[in-house]
């Protein structure tokens, strides 16, 4: 196969042949390789546990953050009605960062946990194959001439080697994902610790770095559209001046809603 499978097969086959090339005794090599994989897998599990802990910590803060979200939303509205679009944007960026980060962390941790379960299953599978190999080797030795036996044993070793190489690749993949997740989780924690999600009126000098990070996290689009929506809602009150009546609720507000209740996001806010 020239495509997807071909390339992938090649990677694994190269790994196996490298491993078995060095082997004087394939059984011993496989045993040793297995121990190495188990150790690597422990690292992955520890990494995932770390990320899960971070996630839980963030989740515990999330109730606080949810309140913060409402507050930031209110502040964005207030800022806009005072003509401070810059401040409103910052508030919305912070709000968006909290929401999207929590959501994406959740999904990714779930995925990692699923991956961990699968890795554990694969480790057991490999263990069974090595056991089977050990038995088979003795049977082959008893049944065949030395030269024949060597060929057959080496074939069987390749089968086990493939399983091992595959587990190795899966471990590596999980490790990379865990690393990326860890970076994300600690980025959110850093932002939290720096008071980034606190009162927007506390924005002062020296927060350039935080704001840059926020900007990267939120990547504009959602913030832009929300800002536009908010502007449209506030439009008559803030900009025009020709209309004496404040109508902050906009089109989505219930008719009987009190005129001024800026703390309520008009739509979709959580």
């Amino acid at each position, binding site marked *: *196969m*020239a*495509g*997807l*499978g*071909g*390339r*992938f*097969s090649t*990677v*694994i*086959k*190269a*790994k*196996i042949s490298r491993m078995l090339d060095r082997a004087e005794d394939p059984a011993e090599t496989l045993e040793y390789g297995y121990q190495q994989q188990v150790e690597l897998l422990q690292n992955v599990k520890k990494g995932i546990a770390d990320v899960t802990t971070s996630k839980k910590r963030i989740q515990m803060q999330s109730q606080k953050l949810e309140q913060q979200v409402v507050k930031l939303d209110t502040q964005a509205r207030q800022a806009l009605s005072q003509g401070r679009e810059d401040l409103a944007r910052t508030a919305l960026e912070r709000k968006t960062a909290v929401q999207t980060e929590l959501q994406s962390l959740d999904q990714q941790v779930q*995925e990692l946990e699923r991956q961990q379960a*699968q890795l554990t299953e*694969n480790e057991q*599978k490999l263990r*069974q*194959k090595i*056991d*089977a*190999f050990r038995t*088979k080797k003795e049977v082959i030795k008893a049944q065949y001439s030395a030269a024949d036996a060597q060929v057959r044993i080496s*074939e*069987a*070793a*390749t*089968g*086990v080697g*493939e399983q091992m190489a*595959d587990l190795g*690749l*899966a471990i*590596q*993949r999980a490790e990379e994902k865990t690393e990326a997740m860890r970076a994300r989780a600690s980025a959110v924690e850093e932002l939290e610790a720096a008071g980034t999600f606190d009162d927007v009126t506390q924005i002062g000098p020296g927060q350039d770095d935080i704001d840059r990070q926020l900007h990267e996290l939120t990547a504009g689009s959602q913030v832009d559209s929300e800002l536009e929506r908010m502007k449209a809602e506030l439009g008559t009150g803030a900009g025009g001046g020709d209309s004496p009546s404040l109508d902050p609720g906009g089109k989505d507000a219930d008719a009987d809603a009190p005129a001024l209740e800026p703390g309520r996001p008009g739509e979709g806010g959580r």
Partner: protein
Amino acid sequence: MIVRISGEDQFRLPDADAERLNELDNRAVAAAEAGDEAGFRELWLHMIELVERDGERLPDDELVHSDVILPPRDISFAEAVGEFTGEGVIPD
């Protein structure tokens, strides 16, 4: 023909499936190269389904090497693209 789904199991497939699998494979590669994520996803799903439907799962004590090794089921589009353009799904 023995096919492995990376991260999972090995399957024994009728040799007749090789052609079909190869065709899907080539189309999946073309989709990935063209940046067609939806197309790639669909083809990829077909490949996995074909292996699971026609294949007989090998027991853990069977020690054979695979003729074909498919990438993990949950391969991302970015990983798939990297397969062909970059240093591969998993750099060595």
